[in-house]
C-alpha cells in the first residue's frame, strides 16, 4: 500500500457508487492505493445507507444506475452535506439537468481508475493546504 498515513480519527472514507461490480473493484483498488477507505455501493439504497451511517470525505458516483435510476438523490445529499464528489459517467449528454445543476466534477468514462480517484480527492488536498 503506497497511500499516505492518516490518523485513525481522520480516515479518508470515499463512497463509490456504480452498478457495474468490475468498475467498483477497479476503483476500490485505486482508492486503497491512494490510502483511502473505499465504501462501495451497487445501487441507490446501498449508497444512501452508507451516506447515513458514515462520515464520508469524498465520493465517486456513476450517473446512470440502470432501470432509469440516476445518482441524483445521493449527489443531492452529498451536496447538502458539503461532501465533494465526481460524476463518473459514460454519458455526459444524457445527464438530466437535475444532476448537472448539483455541480459535481464530471469525469468521463472510461478514465483510468487512478485518475478518477485523483480527481475525486483533489478538493480534499486543497482543503488541507
Amino acid at each position, binding site marked *: 500500500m503506497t497511500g499516505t498515513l492518516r490518523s485513525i480519527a481522520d480516515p479518508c472514507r470515499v463512497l463509490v457508487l456504480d452498478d457495474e461490480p468490475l468498475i467498483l473493484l477497479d476503483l476500490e483498488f485505486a482508492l486503497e492505493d491512494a490510502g483511502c477507505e473505499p465504501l462501495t455501493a451497487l445501487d441507490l439504497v446501498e449508497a444512501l445507507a452508507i451516506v447515513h451511517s458514515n462520515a464520508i470525505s469524498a465520493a465517486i458516483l456513476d450517473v446512470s444506475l440502470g432501470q432509469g435510476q440516476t445518482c441524483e438523490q445521493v449527489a443531492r445529499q452529498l451536496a447538502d452535506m458539503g461532501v465533494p464528489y465526481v460524476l463518473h459517467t*459514460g454519458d455526459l449528454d444524457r445527464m438530466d439537468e437535475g444532476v448537472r445543476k448539483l455541480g459535481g466534477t464530471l469525469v468521463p468514462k*472510461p478514465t*483510468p481508475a487512478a485518475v478518477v480517484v485523483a480527481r475525486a480527492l483533489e478538493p480534499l488536498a486543497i482543503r488541507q493546504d
Partner: protein
Amino acid sequence: MNRNIPDPSSPAAPGNQAPVTNDSANAPYAGSSFGGSFAGISGLDIGGKGIADVQFAQAMAQTHLAICLCDPHQDDMPVVFANRAFIKLSGYEEHEILGRNCRFLQGPKSDRQTIARIRSSLRNEEVLVVEILNYRKDGSTFWNALHLGPVYNADGKLIYFLGSQWDVSDVRAARAEERHAREMARELSHRMKNMFAVIGGIVNFTGRVRGIETEAREINDRIQALGRAYETTLDDSHRGTVEVGQAIRAVLAPYDPGSTRIRFEGNGLRSDFASVSVLGLALHELAVNAARHGALSQENGYVTVAWQRNIGEHGPAIRIDWSEHGNPAADQATGRNLSGSDGIVDRMLDMARGGIVREWGEAGLKASLTIPLREHTD
C-alpha cells in the same frame, strides 16, 4: 353557398358583396384565359383592378401551396375560397369544402392543444404557425404545417383569415428517423464506454493479483486508446466512415490535458473503420514515447501531428506526420530502442500494408506513417 372572395383593396365587407355563382359569365374576369379553368378561382373577386390583381388571383389559385380563405363574418367561419392545391391535398371536391369550417380537416388524433392554439389565434387575430395531424377525405392522415393569419382591408377591418397548408409528413418522418438514429448512437456510445471501463477493471484486477501491474497498465493503456479512437466513430456510424482527425484528437487527448502541447494540422479526411485500430494504437505508442523520452517529456517540447490523403505506391493512403519539437537530446540510438518497446507499431503498420519511417532531426523524432485508404463512394 357563399363564394365571396376577398378584395384586399375593397372597403366593402365581404358579406355585402353579391354572391357569385359558378356561372363564369358572372365572374368579374369572365372570358379571361384562366376563367374557371382552375379550382376555386371562379369566385375570386378581383374587382377589375387590373392585370396585377389578375395575376395575383392566378398565383393564389395555381400555387402548389394549399391555400384557403375563411370568412369570420359568417356563422362558424366557413371556407369561402380554396385553391387547387388545397383540393388536391385534402382529397375533397371544391363543393365539399366551401361553406364548411376548416375543422373538417381535423380528426381523432389531431392534437387538442394545437387546436386550442388555432382557436385562440383566430380569436386574437394573431398569426400562427403550427404542425397538426390532419385527415383527408379518405381518412388517411398527413402532417400539416399550417400557417394562418388575419387579412385586413384598406381600412384595417378584418375581412378574412388566410390559411396555408403544407404536407410535411415526409419531413417529420425524416426528423423522427434522425432522432432515433441519434438516440441509438448515444446508447451504443454509452454501452461501449462502459464496456471499455469494465475491460480496464478486469485487466487491472488481473495484473494486480498476478503481480504484473506494469504489464497490465501497458495493456490497459493500449485498450483505452483503442476505445477513444472508436468512440469517435459512433457519431456518424451510419456513414460507414470515420473522420481521421477526430480519431487522432481523441486518442491523443489524455497526453495533452491543457491542449497546448500537441498541435493538429489536417482536414476532414475520412477513412473506413478498419484503419481506426491501427491508427489509434500507433499514435498512442508515439505519444507514450514522447511523454517518456521525447518532446512531451521536455518542459517546452511540443508535437505537431499532420494528416493528409496521399497517393502512394499502392494507391491512396492516409499519411500522418508526427514531428517532435524541443527535444534536442533525442538521438537515433535511444530513440530506436524506445520507440514501441515491443515493436507493435511497426508490425501493426506492416500488417496493414502500410509502414512507418522514423528520422531523428535536431528538434527530435519525425515519424511518417502510412495506412492504405480504402475509399468509400458515398
